[in-house]
């Protein structure tokens, strides 16, 4: 069995176990009730998406230094998965906010900076589609991948800079140990899951580039 297959099955098993524990085994929060169970996936997916954007920053820097296409392909794979994760973070946050805060959305600094983060990396993907030249595409994307990363620490620090509606970051240290364990379990599960998605997307990106370089007449 190859690494990718192992990672796929491991992701499925861990995410499944994480969801069962979060939904059915750990008790509901005394204050926030059942809806607090959304945070067991909201927080890990948010953090892992930011890690994905850090990988984009690293790969973009490596591309500009070495001009090797493989770094660009890893970067675009991580961006796609990061964009998916950031969109899910906002949706999950909104579903948690409605019963807790009484509103679906607020222009709170954490929410607003996260929405801007999503727009930046969606823009990264749009810019890539504007040219057919692989080198030019990789160069433009790398610049956005590096400059865009500035937004990640802004998102993280927004809850400290502007004390507003969104609470400070949730972590195993900020909650009772049984809740912290479930959070860590789900973090590990989604980390493996997102690594699997990036790996799959990278494999596809290599095939796409190979087809692009050989020309349309060579395509199946």
């Amino acid at each position, binding site marked *: 069995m190859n690494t990718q297959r192992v990672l796929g099955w491991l992701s499925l098993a861990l995410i499944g176990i994480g969801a069962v524990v979060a939904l059915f085994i750990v008790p509901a929060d005394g204050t926030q009730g*059942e809806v607090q169970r959304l945070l067991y996936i909201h927080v890990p997916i948010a953090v892992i998406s930011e890690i994905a954007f850090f990988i984009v920053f690293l790969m973009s820097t490596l591309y500009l230094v070495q001009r090797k296409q493989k770094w660009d392909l890893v970067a675009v794979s991580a961006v796609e998965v990061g964009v*998916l994760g950031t969109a899910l973070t906002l949706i999950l946050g909104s579903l948690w906010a409605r019963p807790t805060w009484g509103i679906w959305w607020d222009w709170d600094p954490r929410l607003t900076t996260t929405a801007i983060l999503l727009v930046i990396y969606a823009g990264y993907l749009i810019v890539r589609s504007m040219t057919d030249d692989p080198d030019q595409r990789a160069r433009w994307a790398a610049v956005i991948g590096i400059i865009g990363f500035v937004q990640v620490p802004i998102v993280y620090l927004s809850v400290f800079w502007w004390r507003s509606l969104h609470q400070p970051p949730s972590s195993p240290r900020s909650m009772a140990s049984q809740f912290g364990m479930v959070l860590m379990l789900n973090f590990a599960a989604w980390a493996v899951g997102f690594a699997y998605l990036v790996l799959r997307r990278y494999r*596809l990106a290599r095939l796409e580039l190979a087809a692009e370089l050989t020309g349309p007449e060579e395509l*199946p």
Partner: protein
Amino acid sequence: MNDLNNPFFLIAGYGITFVAVLAYLLRVRVREREFRVDPGPEG
């Protein structure tokens, strides 16, 4: 029912997350299959 314990929010949150991730994975797999070269009779 208190909204904090309304199952709609949990079902919607976990449901959307799993469907979105599976849909993305499916899209990648379908695209990958499109690139699989048919070796033909000589292959």
